């Protein structure tokens, strides 16, 4: 059963289309990673799903209802980002107890457990926290609220690597115990890979890919070697990314399906066949030019 359905969804700010005819389905109880470049429309999409923004056109359904301004959707979802504000008159421990009654599945035991683990000062107001600590605190709300739809928009902003790892682990552990639909947007795909089931890649407000994370890993392959030899194999095929590796040597990323039969042959002709990490692949797929930043320097 799909929890989220978007059909031809568009959101424009004036002339700029933040979301451009996007259609997607997200299934129940899956962890989906929303990946995209800066300004690709990730936050806008998540805010539409959370019911904060109204789509300009197209249909969006969350739990089979329109999310905008919907009490039903709000009751069953939580949106976590680093701009969440809490009143200064409340201390951190106050916030946890005051927010709890709003969420039916709230686990106060878990919340206080995580709160103590990250050794927050219970008397501190939220606005005094550092960037990383704010994200950490907000993530506690996201996990402990156990909403059927939990949305994290860049949850790890400012977190150090130890805390990030703890966050991924705690999220995964709680998810396994209480499955729910989780959407995470992040730039750190390499770190997230381990916990994501599906990956949704968007660029310029449109969907590029929506695949299980494992399939994405196998999607492309990189081949590196003598430029002429490499070109012989990839000629006429759609190249995802191309880079001059050294003089006379070329690195090309290409869909695995296109050269699956030739892989043995390629290996025998002395060309290296490399796997492409999902993180790199997403960067290549969303790049505006085929040669990446190098193009800027090679223009002369």
């Amino acid at each position: 059963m799909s929890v989220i359905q978007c059909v031809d969804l568009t959101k424009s700010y004036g002339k700029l289309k933040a979301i451009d005819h996007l259609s997607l389905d997200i299934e129940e109880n899956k962890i989906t990673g929303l990946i995209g470049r800066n300004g690709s429309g990730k936050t806008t999409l998540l805010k539409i799903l959370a019911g904060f923004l109204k789509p300009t056109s197209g249909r969006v359904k969350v739990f089979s209802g329109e999310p905008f301004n919907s009490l039903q959707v709000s009751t069953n979802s939580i949106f976590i980002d680093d701009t969440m504000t809490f009143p200064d008159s409340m201390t951190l421990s106050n916030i946890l107890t005051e927010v709890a009654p709003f969420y039916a599945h709230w686990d106060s035991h878990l919340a206080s457990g995580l709160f103590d683990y990250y050794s927050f000062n219970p008397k501190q107001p939220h606005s005094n926290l550092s960037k990383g600590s704010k994200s950490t605190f907000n993530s506690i709300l996201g996990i402990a609220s156990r909403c059927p739809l939990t949305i994290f928009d860049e949850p790890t902003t400012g977190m150090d690597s130890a805390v990030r790892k703890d966050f991924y682990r705690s999220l995964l552990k709680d998810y396994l115990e209480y499955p729910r639909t989780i959407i995470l947007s992040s730039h750190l795909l390499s770190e997230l890979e381990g916990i994501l089931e599906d990956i949704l890649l968007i660029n310029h407000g449109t969907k590029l890919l929506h695949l299980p994370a494992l399939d994405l890993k196998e999607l492309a392959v990189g081949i590196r070697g003598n430029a002429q030899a490499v070109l012989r194999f990839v000629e006429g095929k759609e190249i995802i990314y191309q880079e001059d590796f050294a003089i006379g040597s070329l690195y090309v990323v290409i869909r695995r399906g296109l050269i699956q039969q030739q892989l043995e042959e390629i290996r025998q002709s002395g060309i290296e066949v490399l796997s492409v990490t999902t993180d790199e692949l997403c960067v290549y797929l969303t790049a505006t030019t085929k040669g990446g930043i190098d193009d800027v320097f090679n223009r002369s």
Partner: protein
Amino acid sequence: MSSTEVNLLSISLKQYFYKLKAHTDLVNRLIITQLLALLFSLGGVSSMSSGSANLTVSLRSYSANIVIIFSILWILITAILLTTKPYKKMEMPLVGNRISGDISDVGFLMTASVFAGVTSSLAGVLLRVIMYFTFDRSKMGFDSFSLTFSDLLLGMLVAILYLGLISAVGYFIGMLTQMNMAFIVLIPAVIYGTLRVYTGLAQSVFEFYVVDVSLPLFALRVIITSIMLFGVSMLLSNRMEAGK
């Protein structure tokens, strides 16, 4: 995980209790404002003196009206503040929609009106007590010094009604400016312009709410106007997007 059924009123009520705790700083501002007004009141609101060759009479009047006026200003500013982004953003981590947020704001403003109305009326009593113990009693005119309990209650009720009305006006103005910043300029311009063109209008509006014969009629007018203003504000807010 199963989805939970919802009820607008119960969520608004939860938000209301959340806001009571969240907005304590606003209430602190009221207390400071009232203390300041009380301090001004101790200087007297008007003084008059006349005399002939061998007799001088000077008369100074004291009143705690400034406290009520300051409280009205406070509730106006508070109502406008509640519609602004920083305050509306505080609703985002909570369950709710625009309507539940507005209902809880109205609830908070009503509570604030009652609190401000009661305290500002009691400030009149406090002023009398301070004067009784610190001023030269032989020079005091006691005619209107003592305040009957029924008068105190009446004063409270009227103050609460005014505060409620002003909070509705403030919330409406705040909502308009949230829709479009142009209203910051437009509203004062329209008010000023209308008053210049229709000179009798201010007089009749004033008479409609202020110069009145019976308390129930006055209360009815104030309550209906407030409900209308809050209602329109909610309709406006219901179309707006949260947390852009």
